[in-house]
């Protein structure tokens, strides 16, 4: 066995550890008690048609076991439609959709998570939080994304994690420890690409204020712009329940 092979074998676990440490650092640096923003979504389909939606995003809790409520405020016909996401550190999230017009909530089943969320290019699963413990990581190297030196990391869901994606490739900016890009694969096909841009420091946390999700199979894309972003907003745990969804309608 030559020296290079030995070095690679010895380095492999070390690089895997590094990759995980990088993702942990990303998670740690973005750690807040709560978060609130107003999002504007522009959907561009393959034929150039566009539509615009707006939602308010509220999140509470620590990474991996947080709770999220997304509530649409536009267009007018979907005003009040809401999604409750309860993330779990050890398994897939629980999700419910509330439709005020029929006063009913509907649980989003695991097998339905690969479908598009309300005509956007985000799937229900894309709205889940990616907890560091639910994936295995491997450092693939370094690349420059939008002019920023970044680590390129492969992440594969652990067996306990139910996911539509076989693997993801994640780019993390070295300077700010923030995501630059995520490419999600189904088997070997690149299905969705998420680009993070317009990096700004808000309350001491580097945050991408523009997210662009590209569905490569449909050739459509959705741009999400974060406005009125507020970390550690005064949110309460009881605002993140099914009853709270009903109360607010």
């Amino acid at each position: 066995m030559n020296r290079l092979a030995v070095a690679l074998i010895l380095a492999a676990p070390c690089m895997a550890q590094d990759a995980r440490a990088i993702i942990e650092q990303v998670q740690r640096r973005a750690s807040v008690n709560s978060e609130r923003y107003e999002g504007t979504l522009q959907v561009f389909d393959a034929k150039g048609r566009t539509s615009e939606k707006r939602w308010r995003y509220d999140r509470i809790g620590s990474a991996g076991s947080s709770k999220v409520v997304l509530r649409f405020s536009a267009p007018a016909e979907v005003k009040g439609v809401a999604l409750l996401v309860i993330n779990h550190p050890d398994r897939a999230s629980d999700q419910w959709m509330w439709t005020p017009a029929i006063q009913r909530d509907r649980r989003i089943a695991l097998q339905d998570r690969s479908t598009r969320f309300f005509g956007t290019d985000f799937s229900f699963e894309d709205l889940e939080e990616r907890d560091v413990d639910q994936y295995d990581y491997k450092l693939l190297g370094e690349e420059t994304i939008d002019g920023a030196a970044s680590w390129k990391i492969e992440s594969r869901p652990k067996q306990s994690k139910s996911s539509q994606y076989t693997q993801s490739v994640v780019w993390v900016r070295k300077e700010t420890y923030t995501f630059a890009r995520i490419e999600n694969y189904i088997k070997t096909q690149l299905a969705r690409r998420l680009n993070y841009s317009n990096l700004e420091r808000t309350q001491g946390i580097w945050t991408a204020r523009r997210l662009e999700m590209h569905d490569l199979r449909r050739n459509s894309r959705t741009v999400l712009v974060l406005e009125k972003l507020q970390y550690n907003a005064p949110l309460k745990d009881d605002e993140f329940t099914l009853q709270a969804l009903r109360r607010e309608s």
Partner: protein
Amino acid sequence: MTPRILIALTPLLLSAQSFTQRGFLDLRTVIYPETAPGDSGRAIAESLLRYEASYRFTPALRLAGAIDARADTHLQTERDPRLDWQDRTLRRPALSIRRLSVVYGRGGVTAELGKQFIRWGKADILNPTDRFAPRDFLGVVDNDFLAVTAVRVTIERSGNTLDAVFTPRLTPSRTPLLNQRWTLLPEGVRLPDIGSRYPGAGQFGVRWNRVGRGFEHSLSFYEGFNHLPLFDAARFERFYPRLRMFGADAAVPLRWFTVKGESAWFTSRGRQADEYVQYVLQLERQSGEWSLVGGYSGEYVTRRRALFGFSPDRGLTRAFLGRVSYTIDTNRGVVMEAAVRRNGDGAWIRTEYSQAFGQHWRATAGFTLIRGDAGDFLGQYRRNSHALLALRYSF
């Protein structure tokens, strides 16, 4: 409270206040290709203006209201513009309070008092356990929910929800008008409507829902009156029989689809109403742009007392039910719903195409096909297949 304290509290109160509103103006035309006995109308134009608003006094206290203003060309809507609260008129009121309730929520407890919507059950198309959900059945197959005046207290604790409801007075479902096409009378026969006999007592219901790891199930109980009427043949008067319900529902997501089941056993202390078990079993799946729901609704009558009545929920039993929707793109979609009786005696199929224009407008075109035998609940309306054209401006 002194002025100084009030001044000090003002910023706090203002920051807690919030006002939200939404609504729509819906204009639609329903076209019936066939005439029906006693009703020469082939085209009906309807308009509905709905305005909903809510005001938050404090983070825990909110007032929610909605108002409907209607007009139509077929005398299905009252011409008197008085503001209606009770929803007991035979025709749709021209102006009505659709909802007006005070909602108080703190911790895991929510209390709502006033006119409100209460939905129970997990199945689609047919919900046997949904006892506080009367509907406007003037068009039988095209129906909308009516609110009930109620006190509702919901307690939610770690996946368990206990829901208790009391309504002091019955809100009945609105039944088809006697001398229009959705009431089937022999040619030339016209009957005067001498009204309804409403019960004097209230209704009570309680439901326990458990959200487990990957499944949900509920048990429910209802004691009160059926919101669907029986008819006193001698006086041709509607009355609402006593009803007691023991219900259960569950939703279990599996690898390929979600299984939903809902069942209720109905008994009655009155001597006129049937006693029966109703159940729905359905599979649900979303795949890409497709949403698929298919199932079967059944009924087993344990005691038949069989008076003449209007019962669209039972009319949809012993039937295969389905709904398929497909999202064409960000603005367009099609949906098809169907109920086909097991014995083939009746079928109802509705297909709708809708398209949004910009942020506010949506146009819908659809066709409802009804076929079957005269003796079947669905089949009796076979001359009422109709086309729909609708335009909605949402704000």
